[in-house]
């Protein structure tokens, strides 16, 4: 699961990756014609919209790609750098950069490209940008108010607009296609080329087909998390869908564990690696009744990269624990849909465990051997479990142990 940094690619290798990516980045920009300021500013005067075509195509392809990767669980978006939104700083900064674009003829990336092939104006531009950063650094107290105001966190635009990711992606692709059409028209007009913006040639047809496929694919690569939450929103479906509630003492189902088996499991857990408990209870509940060797989880964690590794340890049963069976079933269904295997839940949740084991009242009517054994077992467990659980309570992971978002941006 991506991002591959920092665990699969780390440290100095990441710098080599940066270098290779940079070489490709520079080569593509140069090949596309971004190394000449006359071509770059063309879009602001209407005579050359190459930049807009490359830019929007790249943005749309990468966006749909990210959505597809997320859909198939190939990337953990909670670790990916989402540019933060500082409302006024972004707007004012953008306007200043726009002004800089029509005066200077470059943006930073393209100026580096152009300087590399000998454009002297680009070298001068880089010098200017260098000075600009110094001005910002020295005048920082002056800019700071604007720079840090209206911090909206790291929202994604579809969240800000309160629409689904699918619809948003579709709109963006359609917007890009319309922009291509309009700019073709404008370009022909400005350059006094008397022909329609789109001709019925294989070239335009294929651009259109690819565009439409990209637009429609946003419906295919739905937001997986939203889908799964929707799937488990029906309580009836959930209750009937996991382990059909059956769990007898002798014959445990594959998907359910009854409180007695869970108790046995707990007592053996320090010596045995066959089970791992994933605790979906709140922090308060976990503190009050800790479970040994358990990993605290939330629904968001199911989609993340770190817990992914814990859930896929071979030959180990993953036991999902919550206060109630419904929550356990929801999590188990989601995890199964995500492709995780060997998941069991505790019948009745921790509430049943509490009632049947920790607060067990002796059964005076126990007559058969099985009933007597059960009675004894539960009384025994009741006596030793509380101290045992406290003794082996898991150390709560500190915040710094959690993988952080990658620091990106400029």
């Amino acid at each position, binding site marked *: 699961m*991506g*991002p591959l940094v920092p665990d699969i690619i780390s440290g100095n290798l990441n*710098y080599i990756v940066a*270098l290779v*990516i940079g*070489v490709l*980045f*520079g*080569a593509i920009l*140069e*090949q*596309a014609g971004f*190394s*000449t300021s006359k071509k770059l500013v063309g879009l*602001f005067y209407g005579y050359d919209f190459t930049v807009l075509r*490359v*830019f*929007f195509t790249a*943005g749309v*392809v*990468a966006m749909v790609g990210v959505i597809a990767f997320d859909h198939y669980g190939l*990337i953990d*978006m909670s670790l990916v*750098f989402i540019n933060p939104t500082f409302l006024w*700083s972004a707007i004012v*900064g*953008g306007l*200043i950069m726009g*002004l*800089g*674009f*029509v*005066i200077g*003829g*470059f*943006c*930073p*990336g393209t*100026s580096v*490209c152009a300087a*590399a*092939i000998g*454009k*002297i*104006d*680009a070298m001068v531009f880089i010098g*200017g*940008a*260098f*000075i*600009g950063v110094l001005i*910002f*650094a020295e005048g920082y*107290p002056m800019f700071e108010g*604007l720079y840090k105001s209206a911090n909206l966190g790291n929202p*994604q635009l579809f*969240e800000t607009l309160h629409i689904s990711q699918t619809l948003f992606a579709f709109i963006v692709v359609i917007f890009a296609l319309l922009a291509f059409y309009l700019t073709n028209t404008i370009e022909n007009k400005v350059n006094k080329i008397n022909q329609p913006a789109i001709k019925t040639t294989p070239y335009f047809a294929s651009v259109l087909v*690819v565009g439409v496929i990209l637009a429609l694919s946003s419906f295919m690569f739905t937001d997986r998390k939203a889908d799964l939450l929707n799937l488990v929103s029906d309580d009836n479906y959930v209750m009937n869908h996991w382990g059909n509630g059956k769990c007898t003492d002798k014959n445990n189902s594959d998907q359910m564990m009854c409180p007695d088996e869970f108790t046995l499991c707990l007592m053996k857990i320090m010596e045995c690696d066959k089970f791992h408990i994933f605790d979906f209870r709140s922090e308060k509940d976990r503190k009050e009744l800790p479970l040994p060797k358990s990993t605290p989880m939330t629904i968001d964690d199911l989609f993340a990269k770190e817990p992914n590794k814990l859930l896929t340890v071979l030959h180990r049963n993953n036991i999902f624990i919550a206060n109630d069976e419904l929550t356990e079933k929801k999590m188990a269904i989601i995890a199964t849909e995500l492709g995780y295997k060997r998941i069991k839940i505790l019948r009745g949740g921790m509430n049943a465990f509490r009632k049947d084991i920790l607060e067990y009242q002796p059964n005076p009517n126990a007559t058969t051997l099985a009933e007597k054994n059960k009675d004894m077992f539960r009384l025994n467990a009741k006596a030793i479990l509380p101290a045992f659980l406290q003794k082996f309570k898991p150390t709560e992971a500190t915040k710094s142990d959690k993988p952080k*978002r990658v620091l990106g941006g*400029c």
Partner: protein
Amino acid sequence: MEETKYMNPYLAGVLLGLLLLATIYITGRGLGASGAIKSFAIATVESVAPAHTEATQFYQEYSNEHTGSPLMNWLVFEVIGVVIGAFLSGLMANRLKFKFEMGPRSTTKMRVIGAIIGGILWGIGSQLGRGCTSGAALSGMAVMSTGGFLTMFAIFAGAYIFAYFFRKFWI
């Protein structure tokens, strides 16, 4: 020798998009450019006037967020790669040549002054916008960041608003 024609813009866009996607998949972050210029600027000040950086808030905030030398930075390596990649591409396309480029009505002096001022504006603007066309606008679009789209629209809006006043530079 004649210059090779430029690549088809849609093809270049798809390639750039796939590269950006790969970058996000591998590193969890997008492409960038202005960050490298910032790193160079900070590294320069640090080596020229170390006492000054220790006393100035901006450099302090930067060193709190970044460990090690400002030059040991992902974007610095990426931009070194850009120089190499663009050079190789220019070499293959016969575009390597020292020259000024400007509109027909512009002069070299105008072009130099414009490039400096434009650069300065980008230096300041990219700090405020927390990234430039690559780091904020393009990479921000790929991850659908509100801030990224906002910066992108502001850049385009700014350029279109002011384009008329500087038309003598280009057309």
